């Protein structure tokens, strides 16, 4: 990964300035082809779109939120975008480079069901400790409901997220220990028809 700051700034307070001065160039096409399941052409199209929106080569969280909100104008997608950002940012450096982006996409669109469920678990597990607690689930649920906005049917009450979390935990938490581990999650999803069917839909997105 070549990170070449064009103007090294000694002052660490000017984080934003530093980020915009950083130019990130991704690995060559061959390496990316090996890392992901996209072919050359698809990578080219993805990179062009990525670079168009983020000319500096990396996405920071604000840009991420802005882009994602444009797809969901009716609600407030910023919390969900925040969780998504953390899920994409695998090396936890505060920015999503093209490699992170395309590796994430590869898992989501071309990965096996196991990998996808793994990724979804990673998204829900906010503090990345290997298990989902009710509070984490509640945060995610609230973020999703915020994103959907007010135009839902039937109309949401304030404690609908909490009820939804209860239903989810009843379904997923087999040993009733208050947390959902990755094995419980994957197990339960694989046994659920609806979820399996929805997973198939991601095949032809690109």
């Amino acid at each position, binding site marked *: 990964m070549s990170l070449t700051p064009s103007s090294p700034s000694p002052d660490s307070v000017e984080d934003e300035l530093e980020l915009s001065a950083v130019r990130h160039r991704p690995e060559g096409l061959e390496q990316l082809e090996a890392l992901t399941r996209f072919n050359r052409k698809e990578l080219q199209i993805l990179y062009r779109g990525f670079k168009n929106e983020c000319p500096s080569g990396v996405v920071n969280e604000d840009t991420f939120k802005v882009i994602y909100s*444009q*797809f969901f104008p009716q609600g407030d997608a910023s919390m*969900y975008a925040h969780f998504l950002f953390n899920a994409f940012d695998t090396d936890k450096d505060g920015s999503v480079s093209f490699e992170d982006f395309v590796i994430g996409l590869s898992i989501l669109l071309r990965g096996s069901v196991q990998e996808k469920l793994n990724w979804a678990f990673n998204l829900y597990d906010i503090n990345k400790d290997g298990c989902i607690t009710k509070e984490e689930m509640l945060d995610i649920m609230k973020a999703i409901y915020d994103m959907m906005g007010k135009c839902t049917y039937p109309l949401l009450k304030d404690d609908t997220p909490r009820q939804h979390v209860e239903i989810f935990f009843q379904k997923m938490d087999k040993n009733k220990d208050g947390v959902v581990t990755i094995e419980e999650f994957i197990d339960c999803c694989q046994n659920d028809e609806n979820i399996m069917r929805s997973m198939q839909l991601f095949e032809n997105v690109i």
Partner: protein
Amino acid sequence: MAAGVAAWLPFARAAAIGWMPVANCPMPVAPRDHRKRHDELIILNVSGRRFQTWRTTLDRYPDTLLGSSEKQFFYDEETKEYFFDRDPDSFRSILNFYRTGKLHYPRYECISAYDEELTFFGIIPEIIGDCCYEEYKDRKRENAERLQDDQDDNKDCKLPNMTYRETMWRAFENPHTSTMALVFYYVTGFFIAISVLTNVIETVPCGATPSQKDMPCGERYTIAFFCMDTACVLIFTVEYLMRLFAAPSRYQFMRSVMSIIDVVAIFPYYIGLVMTDNEDVSGAFVTLRVFRVFRIFKFSRHSQGLRILGYTLKSCASELGFLLFSLTMAIIIFATVMFYAEKGSSSTKFTSIPASFWYTIVTMTTLG
């Protein structure tokens, strides 16, 4: 949706995995994209200069010429490119609009040429980015004003079947339209000059006989000067009435500056006619004669330079007003200071603040 963000659609769809396991019902199927997924380069030949771009770039704005099927009309089968016989320099901005989603207005570009290009390619100018919008609006306004001025100048063309009244009005406004108008123009100019000269010479002392002390010519040759004055005022009155008759909008004519000057020029004479031999108001009458000097402003109709001076003053009226205001403020401040500074001394000329005004004004304007 912004142009480039459409490329992030697969990402947005993929992110839906987040709420799938928690959804109560199965997800709906994503709509199939029937367009060709693989992109192709389009060649746009604009007067010989070849621009190339992706088809999807142009497809971002389907209600413009390049984004819709309208461009098929310009397709050349043999060279497999789209040929446009337009200005390649302007086309640069237009193509950049598709690429970046922002329309810029380059400064070197002529505003009407640019507008024409935009209209041809079906792009509305309102989407010009904030960076260039001010410039665009300013240039457009200037252009509109210039066109307006041109139209006004072009009103000289001969219009058929004008009524007698309209002909007269045109003759008054523009003396070069007919010989009669020219004659009228010069006659009125001559009489304005005579009138002003008379007013001036009236006051010159010309005592010829040694027995009488020097008295101004006006009192010596009263009858002659009175006849002169009457003749001039008669001419001016006739001119004013004729203009009033010919004016297309009489109300607007009476409100215009020139007509007010006309009225002010001839009024003192009539007032003088009405109240001669009345000792009480003769003093006021004398003051009224001062207004006769306004006849000199009637020359504005004859001199374009004077009119331009008038317009200049009018257009920078706000600046002049501010100058006057700030001067007044300074005068009041310093007059007050002077008054209170000299208050203790008994033999002072600054007996009140208004009394100090004169000193302040004279000092500030460096007259001394």
